């Protein structure tokens, strides 16, 4: 475990943040030129922590020169199983704010926004208080630290929507519109808020920006894996004894994270990256499909060093057909009923589909309808085939990652737990797998 980000916990009071050398990154920043700051972030190798893993420095560099430009902190953390951003907003708000000011300086933005999801009212208050404090200390507002740089931050509160976490949908929501995503291009860096260039960065990404400017890019690039450097927050929940946010260097083996949180009972499956992440099973010893699903050994016994040792960073996860996403790790033990998991997952998608494009609007509802039927004992065997085909069509035809990614958990459940689902459909009850 590392303690680079989490050492700033309990610094919601500005004095305690400054005591830990907070805002030193900003002091260093305003002595540099904006171009130098962007170069520093680029050299650090920082990749976005919101889910897509796009290199932050390259995003900043691609910002169109048109003015005014805006910078947005995406604090619309809606991904089930994810609660790291909430922790940072609540317990280290100045780390986030410092990163946002630095990003504002580097991109010569006029104004910054922090968009916090509607379900986080307390966190919204804490951030607002922290912004007011920063203004008193001349770290925010006109002529920051007596330089010529001026920057202001406004807090926006969401109204309850998952899809708004997508950067194009977020931009729409900030302008007071429905949070529908749009098809990129144009990217927000070209045409974002009010058609002006806009950068959208995740809470944890901006926290890393503060760290990089405090400690330097070389320090940052030495942590974690070559492809995705730096520390990363992993959110472990589900059937574990010690759920919580854990900080590890990028590329930590899954096994280390799970062992730290201690599985409660016998490990059955793991979902990584949020609801849209694939589900990995511990059931079979062979790979169920070419590269998509990694078997983790039989339940309870972790075979050798290999099975649980795939690494949690963007490139390694991509290699096994998954995605690191937001860093959510949901652990399921042998009591987890996969029909239940299927139903929860598909209800989620059906409710959160924004309805803009047909494949997702109709597909998610059809899938949920069938999953609900299975869960209530009215399932048919052919459902499994229909559902997979539906999800494949959605992956090809949907507008945004929401509809495109339904296939990931669905395939994981069907391929790894086909027997369990089928026997549920046939006998309409869950038969607990017997260990031999």
């Amino acid at each position: 475990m590392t303690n680079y980000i989490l050492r700033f916990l309990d610094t919601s009071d500005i004095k305690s943040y400054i005591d830990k050398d907070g805002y030193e990154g900003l002091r260093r920043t305003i002595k540099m030129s904006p171009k130098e700051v962007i170069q520093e972030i680029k050299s650090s190798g920082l990749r976005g922590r919101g889910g897509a893993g796009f290199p932050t420095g390259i995003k900043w560099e691609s910002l169109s020169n048109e003015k005014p430009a805006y910078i947005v902190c995406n604090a619309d953390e809606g991904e089930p199983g994810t609660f790291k951003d909430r922790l940072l907003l609540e317990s280290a708000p100045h780390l986030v704010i410092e990163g946002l000011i630095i990003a504002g300086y580097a991109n010569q933005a006029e104004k910054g926004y922090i968009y916090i999801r509607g379900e986080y009212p307390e966190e919204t208050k804490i951030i607002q208080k922290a912004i007011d404090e920063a203004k008193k200390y001349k770290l925010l507002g006109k002529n920051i630290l007596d330089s010529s740089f001026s920057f202001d931050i406004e807090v926006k509160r969401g109204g309850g929507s998952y899809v708004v976490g997508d950067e194009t949908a977020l931009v729409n929501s900030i302008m007071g519109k429905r949070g529908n995503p749009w098809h990129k291009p144009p990217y927000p860096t070209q045409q974002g808020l009010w058609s002006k260039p806009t950068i959208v960065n995740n809470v944890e990404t901006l926290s890393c920006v503060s760290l990089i400017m405090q400690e330097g890019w070389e320090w940052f690039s030495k942590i974690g894996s070559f492809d995705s450097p730096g520390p990363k927050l992993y959110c472990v929940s589900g059937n574990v004894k010690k759920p919580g946010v854990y900080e590890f260097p990028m590329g930590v083996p899954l096994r280390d994270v799970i062992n730290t949180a201690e599985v409660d009972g016998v490990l059955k499956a793991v979902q990584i990256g949020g609801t849209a992440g694939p589900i990995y099973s511990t059931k079979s010893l062979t790979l169920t499909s070419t590269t998509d699903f990694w078997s983790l050994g039989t339940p309870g016994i972790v075979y050798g060093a290999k099975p649980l040792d795939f690494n949690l960073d963007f490139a390694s996860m991509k290699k096994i057909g998954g995605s690191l996403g937001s860093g959510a790790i949901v652990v399921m033990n042998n009591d987890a009923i996969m029909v239940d998991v299927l139903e929860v997952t598909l209800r989620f998608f059906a409710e959160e589909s924004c309805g803009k494009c047909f494949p997702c609007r109709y597909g998610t509802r059809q899938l949920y309808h069938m999953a609900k039927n299975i869960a209530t004992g009215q399932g048919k065997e052919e459902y499994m085939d229909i559902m997979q085909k539906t999800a494949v069509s959605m992956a090809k035809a949907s507008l945004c990652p929401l509809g495109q990614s339904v296939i990931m958990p669905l395939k994981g459940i069907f391929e790894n737990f086909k027997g369990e689902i089928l026997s549920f459909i046939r006998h309409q009850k869950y038969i607990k797998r017997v260990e031999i």
Partner: protein
Amino acid sequence: MEEKRENIILAFHKAQEESKNNYIPIEKVKEIAKKHGISLSEASGLLSFYTMFSTEKRGKYVIRVCDSLSCRLMHSIDILLYLQNKLNIEEGETTRDGLFTIERVNCLGRCFSAPNMMINDKIYGNLTPEKIDKIIEQHIKEAEND
């Protein structure tokens, strides 16, 4: 006075908080729409998109029970059923005395203390039936003193 369009979601939040029944009456929607320079139909589109808003009367306390995968693994469905039985209402309904509405939500971002629920702005985690009894009792008392 004209308000900036971008502040409309905040205006909805305020209106809903001001109402005793956690909803935005249609007259108020009209007023807010006009103030922000959009049509009533566009405002309705906004309200139906964002799940936290309602144009129909709800309870003084809206109970949002989290049913994400993390919470489900920690038996959120039992929590939901317990609440429904206790208050004698279904998901989406309001008790006769107008005190409680039960809603099911997708994630409250507190997966480490699953199962969770939120009553208006406050979060309650690591729920058990006993805990729920206490919390509900507290709220009934609070309402009586109001």
